[in-house]
């Protein structure tokens, strides 16, 4: 999974969000109230992340985390050169571009390590920024990044950690698929053969009873959410494997108290919910209606007073958590961003 540097973060008591009084509590949640709650929560998260941005524009020695942060700002409607955070975005972009290896050509992982996780997420962030920022370097690097994804696809249609064709897993693959989709949405051509092979690979990971495996047919929360989202973004929202997988994902829908949240058994909790809420939104209907209120409440209730979110102790994410909590905070903001419908990559 994501390579996250730093110390595990201890969780602290979570402050309760202010309630709106018994009268409001008794009323159905209207759209406006949902937006107000979500916006306020994301705004606190963004203020927190802005306070942690370094002078050089970066947050972390991993471009995946830097890109998640940039995406979180754009997901709230902050675009390059406009609004409250023009400097945060500009400096973030420059840091990402300046610290990308570009070796092989187009590779966006930072010097001294990295993986195609980092490349996929960074390509996604650049693709979302492209069009709102006329920077020619941004466009050139984005095109090179897309070409790298195309030429590093394995013969089976997937991607693996290294920037070369060979092995594949669904987790790395879905990151590339989201990036390709965002680029394609910006009219950057993506070869149809790449798309077709990616579809074939994702489908090969589908478990007959529902769910998707990490490498080959299997089940697992994060990979199942990622598998569904991959097919939805690749133009296969009606794939027969999806409804069964959506039913399977229901088993991950737990009550929203802190204790129940922490005993969910998800080793990559934020990662899972980042994909899960997207695939539920894309799927829509009863699944979405059942999913999003509980997930929203869970994320809103777990935000720290300083605007950040903590990773859950003992999970795989905690083992790699960064001390500034940028990964978890950006991921949580991106989960909540689904309500705002601003990021083009999120659209149905």
């Amino acid at each position, binding site marked *: 999974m994501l390579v996250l540097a730093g110390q595990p973060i201890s969780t602290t008591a979570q402050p309760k969000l202010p309630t709106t*009084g018994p*009268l409001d509590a008794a009323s*159905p949640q209207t759209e406006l109230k949902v937006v107000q709650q979500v916006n306020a929560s994301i705004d606190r998260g963004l203020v927190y992340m802005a306070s942690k941005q370094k002078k050089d524009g970066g947050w972390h020695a991993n471009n995946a985390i830097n890109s998640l942060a940039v995406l979180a700002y754009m997901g709230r409607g902050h*675009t390059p050169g406009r609004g409250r955070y023009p400097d945060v975005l500009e400096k973030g972009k420059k840091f990402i571009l300046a610290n990308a290896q570009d070796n092989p050509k187009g590779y966006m992982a930072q010097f001294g390590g990295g993986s195609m996780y980092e490349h996929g997420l960074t390509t996604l962030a650049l693709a979302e920024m492209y069009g709102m920022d006329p920077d020619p370097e941004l466009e050139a690097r984005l095109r090179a990044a897309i070409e790298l994804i195309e030429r590093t696809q394995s013969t089976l249609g997937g991607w693996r950690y290294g920037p070369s064709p060979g092995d594949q897993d669904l987790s790395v693959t879905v990151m590339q698929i989201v990036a390709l989709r965002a680029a394609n949405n910006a009219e*950057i051509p993506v070869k149809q053969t790449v798309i077709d092979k990616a579809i074939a690979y994702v489908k090969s990971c589908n478990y007959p009873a529902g769910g998707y495996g990490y490498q080959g047919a299997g089940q697992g929360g994060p990979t199942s959410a990622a598998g569904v989202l991959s097919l939805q973004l690749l133009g296969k929202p009606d794939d027969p494997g999806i409804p069964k997988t959506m039913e399977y994902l229901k088993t991950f829908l737990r009550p929203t108290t802190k204790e129940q949240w922490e005993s969910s058994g998800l080793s990559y909790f934020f990662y899972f919910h980042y994909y899960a809420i997207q695939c539920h939104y894309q799927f829509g209907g009863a699944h979405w209606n059942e999913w999003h209120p509980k997930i929203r409440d869970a994320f809103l209730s777990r935000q720290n007073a300083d605007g950040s979110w903590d990773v859950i102790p003992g999970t795989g994410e905690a083992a790699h958590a960064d001390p500034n909590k940028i990964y978890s905070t950006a991921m949580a903001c991106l989960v909540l961003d689904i309500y705002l419908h601003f990021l083009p990559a999120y659209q149905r």
Partner: protein
Amino acid sequence: MTNWLLRQANVGEVFLEHRGELTYHVQNPLVLYIGLPVVALLGLGVFVLQRRNLKSSPVSLIAALTACRVFILALLVLVLSGPFVKLETARENRPVFAIVFDRSQSMDLNAGPFPDHEARGIAQATGLHVSDGPLDPEVRKAINQQTRGRLAHAAVTAKKDELIAAHAKRFDLKAYTFARDVTPIGVDAANFTLPEPTPPGGPSSRLGDAIQHVLKEAAGRPIAGIVVFTDGESTGGLTLGEVAQNCVAANAKVFAVPTGAAAKARDVSIIDVSTSGQVTLGDTARVGVVFESQGYDGKPVRVIVRDGEKVLDTKEIALRSAEQQQVELTFTANESGPRYLVVEIPPFADEDHKSNNTDVALLRVSDEKIKVLYVEGLPRWDFRFLKNAMRRDAGLTGREGKLIDIVVETEWRRQPETARAKALPQTIEELSAYHTVILGDVSPKLLTPAFLQLLEQAVREKGVGLVVQVGPQAMPYEFDKTLLDLLPVQIDRKAAGIYAPAAKPFTLELTPDGVIHEAMQLYDDSGRNQAAWAQMLPYQWCVGAVRPNPAATVLVANPNVTNNYGKLPLIAWQPAGKGRVMLVGTDSTWLWRQNVADRFFYKFWGQSIRFVARTEDAGKKKSWIEVKPVRVQPGEEALVELRAYNQGGAPVEQPSLPVEITGPGTRTSLVLDADPNTKGRYLGRYRVPAVGDFRFQYASGSAEARLRVLAAPEEMRYPNVNRAALQTLATSTGGKVVELTEADWQQKIVSELKGEPKITKRPPSEATIWDNWMVLAMLVIVYALDVGMRRLGGLS
């Protein structure tokens, strides 16, 4: 007489109105004190001297002559002393005490059911005599079944002495009713009688507007308090948050009196219905339904959409009261024209409010797909959302393929030269095959002068519609007259748009023309529509427009940027020859997606694309008439546009033309005025009187349009008394919610009314009373008298 004299002295009306309070003064009293005795002595001397010199003249003549001279001298002394009148007025300034009654449709709902202990309080509040024992069933029934409007009336009437009459001298009582508009009630506080309430019927509740009206009428005077009797629903106008801020600024407390039970009704209510807006015959149409329920958790209901009696789709849903629920219904559009779809959730037998289980939505079904060419510069977010939404819109297509035609400059410039040259249509036939062309933030490298000339010809001569969405890179600043002349606004080419301060982004404001324009209808209900536009997210950049062209119609303005011509036009359109051109002056319409995705964003774009689209009539020179919007509520205005051609196909050139209107119980004529900028175009507005179908005909049916007028369902969407909203409104202004069930509820208001009458003296006003024609006339007359008497007396 004094009045007449003062009027002749030109002292001004205000002095005349306060004649009893006038005092008379002189500027130089010393002149008077010295001058008059001197004149008296002089008069005596003159008399003695004349008696000595004019011995043959009678004494009476000498006395008369002396009197003339003394009078003239005395008058001169008086003038020199500077006489003037002084007005000093004092005013009793009483604080305004306003009582506001909600008279919207929802006030016709039952006030109850109240639990026993509350029913007793309501009975006492409304002046009913109740004994200590159990409440009489008939009394309880009467209390529960009286309407909210009647409850407010009875409560105020029962407590009028304590609430109003006792404070008649202390406060200036103002009373109003409101629904959509505010109506003053003429009342005498000392002898207070509340007129019988008119039947509720207002199609919307603008509580915020009503309170704002009180603030405005107070005109800066102190406000003791504003008491509102309402169910707390506000379906349009100023939001309660906005008006609460204004109340705080005016130091005015709001006391909210909920006029209904606190218990939530057992109810299923359709909150919102949305449709695809427009589809083409054979397409799948979607109807989104949002509803909420109370008291029926887990019970299944069917959501039905039908066209007339024909059921188009139905879905079964299990009710949950915790959140609003959504469902999407689909069907194949098989009949063209405007379709009024009825969405229904059959009510439970024991539902308290059954009128909100039905709503109506408009879907337009066209016979032909609209061909669209979309040219964009950078793949900005508006482009990414719009092109996908257009691709999903089955009513749109390209010139030849199934999908709309898209050219993006960033990809175009990477193509070989030969492909670049063929990217855009090369001939007028190719270009005019499109119904609508959309230009984004494209540079002149792609939009060459040759193409722009072709575009101008296609718009003006072939009626091709054009939408130009501006951007900071090039559009429209880098273009010359050919394109700029097509646009409905004049552009400042010196700057590439206007950036808002980061902390104070621009807002948008729907103009009166925009309120009724078909492109701007996000909701079918006008109140909701205006509220939706008012709540759009602010944006950071807009076009550097100077002013709209004379022929342009501004639909949305930027109120944050003004110049000599008023607010900056943001979205506007104008006819250009046979075509229509719309300018979208911001590149951030994607912000309209917040929380609702494409719903508002694409409703605007889809309607705009179709509004400007080339019509077959554009080439035929045949009269046509349009009425917009196609659905309005009683009392609202509709815009009537007529294009009139004679039999030879030439535009009719008259100062005005009549249109015949027939509707339920209505047969009338509307005179349309000629548009001075477009030959053959006539415009007028018609305020629809009642519910029903209306027909507009020109020249005995040579052109015809229809308009459907529907009652507003918005009043019944939230039937419960919204105490939460009233609590927020009242407490944020320093006031409070007062329940009619509380003992001495009126005292809880009266005890918090603030302010006492104040006597304020105005600065004195002065007016001179000597510099006028009367003084001059007296001088001349007396002098002439003097001369005449001398002549008659044989004196030199």
